[in-house]
């Protein structure tokens, strides 16, 4: 562990804030246990991705400006337990504010500070074995924005493989989109449903107890589908699984 205590700012993300606060708390607890101090700037709302992805860039910019203002202009890493929101800030805030004399450089700066949760643990803290224990068989779903947006894949797999009692199984065509895609899930509902069905079938074919991932938007859509088909499989965010594993 470093001499000076580390501090990160947490960008909760709107989905974790409203629907899955336990997951955000789990992430904070894990970081605290690693000696990391977590600040949570107050007044967070949403990174603006839903609007941006739907083509409403002006609306997205309002939310993005608020986010940029909130996180200030420092070097402190901005930690996000969500590959898609992290990707939004890291890749698309600069696009949103291209040519903007004030927010352009600030967007670029914030984009450079964003770190995904597992990426922070493994690459910044150098930790893969948290000492967790969890008896289950899991299949890891690599969310598209986590995998291709943030280039994070090795890190969550390393963390999972270090959990005692955990068996990680592989599904067919693993790096395939679950079909969430934000508004796509509703606007293109039948296509989304078909893509989801394919993934759920793939997960269930492995016989695993659980689907684990790093992106709550995918997991919410996957769990919604598992419940609808009365599957015995559960879905969990990796932060939750690790936090549960540390309680043992």
């Amino acid at each position, binding site marked *: 562990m470093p001499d000076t205590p580390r501090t990160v700012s947490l960008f909760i993300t709107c989905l974790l804030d409203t629907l899955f606060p336990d997951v955000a708390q789990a992430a904070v607890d894990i970081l605290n246990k690693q000696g990391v101090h977590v600040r949570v700037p107050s007044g967070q*709302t949403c990174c603006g991705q839903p609007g941006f992805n739907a083509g409403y860039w002006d609306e997205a910019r309002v939310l993005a400006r608020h986010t940029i203002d909130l996180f200030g202009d420092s070097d402190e890493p901005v930690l996000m337990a969500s590959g898609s929101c992290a990707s939004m800030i890291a890749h698309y805030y600069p696009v949103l504010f291209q040519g903007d004399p004030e927010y352009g450089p600030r967007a670029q700066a914030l984009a450079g500070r964003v770190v995904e949760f597992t990426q922070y643990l493994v690459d910044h803290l150098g930790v893969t074995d948290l000492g967790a224990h969890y008896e289950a068989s899991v299949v890891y779903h690599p969310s*598209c924005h986590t995998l*291709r947006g943030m280039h994070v894949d090795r890190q969550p797999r390393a963390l999972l493989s270090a959990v005692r009692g955990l068996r990680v199984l592989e599904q067919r*065509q693993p790096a395939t989109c679950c079909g969430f895609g934000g508004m796509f899930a509703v606007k293109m*509902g039948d296509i989304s449903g078909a893509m989801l069905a394919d993934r759920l079938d793939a997960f269930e074919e492995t016989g695993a107890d659980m689907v684990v991932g790093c992106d709550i938007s995918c997991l919410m859509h996957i769990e919604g589908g598992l419940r609808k088909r009365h599957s015995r499989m559960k879905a969990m965010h990796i932060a939750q699984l690790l936090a549960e594993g540390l309680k043992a």
Partner: protein
Amino acid sequence: MSLQTSQQPFHARVSKAFENAERVAAVRRATVRFYDQRLTALRSLPDAEATRDLARAIRAHTIANLDKYLTQFEAAVQALGGQVHWARDAAEARQIVLDIAQKTGAKRIAKSKSMISEEIGLNKALEGAGLEVIETDLGEFIAQLAGEHPSHIIVPVLHLTRQEVGKVFASKLGVPYTDVISELNSIAREKLREVYLSADMGISGCNFAVAETGTICLATNEGNGRMITSLPRVHVALMGLERIVPTLSDLSVMLQLLARSATGQKLTVYTSLITGPRRANEPHGPEELHIVIVDNGRTRALAGEMAEILYCIRCGACLNVCPVYRNIGGHAYGSVYPGPVGSVISPILGGIPAFAELPHASTLCGACQDVCPVRIDFPTLLLRLRRETVRQGRSPVWVTLGMKAYAFMAGSPGRFQLAERLGALFTRLTGGGWFKGQLPGPLSAWTRYRFFPPFNRKTFQARWKERQSNG
């Protein structure tokens, strides 16, 4: 046929696609197989990633210097007695080909696969002028007989079973029904051989035009491409103005990636370099070579933030990997160009009104960018097009209202917390826990396939604030 292949609205086309489970399964089988074969083929390159980087750099440099390379190409072709024509749009391109047919007295025209010929609606125009047009690429031949549009840019009838092909041959060619694939291929071979030997004109596309030599490069497997560019006395090659590379060395780089990305072959069986018409002392080959350089909206892409789509080499890898394409197949896109590349190029060439949904028919998963031999950033291009569809008022009303509401409620911390409390109220009123019922209106699309998650009693931020003030 022209760029737009259907008059039905997008959602109707998608529904229709889902109705045919066999067809969906056929598309899935084919695309998964091509995807796997591509991976194997790339591994056989000494360094696939470095090759892709170089290929991207070649395309980028070429598009940035397009006028220079096109004029160099033109001069090289003309110096060997070939003729170069320029077409601003589809109508002009069709007229040019009609004029050549008329001048040369061509009556029977044999075609090899050419996406751009479909884009400009060439066949219909030629037939309308009383000319006989026969597609010779097996997939296109079948599609032509069946009266269907191709559904994939490399494998035109990937959506048909052999039984369906057998029925088409039996009814249209008057042969006894068979669904044995080798027999179906033999039937096609026999029918088309007679066509090759009697056609007056061959029309091909162009995979790559080489500026330094004035060469048209055609990558084919069946031999029909060679037949129609060797036997008829006139050869017409159509090319989009972006289908050009500077040198033979550049061509060799692109050819390392084209077939591997498309079908997993290292090279197609025949890679033909056609440079000028038959020489005076050559015994065989066309007497006349005409190359038609077509714009038809490509310069519109070139002028702005969509220019990167012109890097595309039409390999089809993006179609093979796209989970949306895999589920809905090519016809649902309603365009000659389906899949990720189609979702970008169709609204550009054909206008947003005709193709407004296509940029939204994607989760932006990025698999396309992952497999693209020239690393086109599809997600960003699709996002820009989505912004345009909104600007042009092509967004459904409920989406706009929803977006405005969302922007409003998430626009301030206070309203955001209020939205959460309203959500928590909904969750309480519906029994707590995951909502099993149907949400109203367009939101029912969610609950058709999923339960809806519960809003928490308190947001994380609310709990955090309490915790800070307590501890």
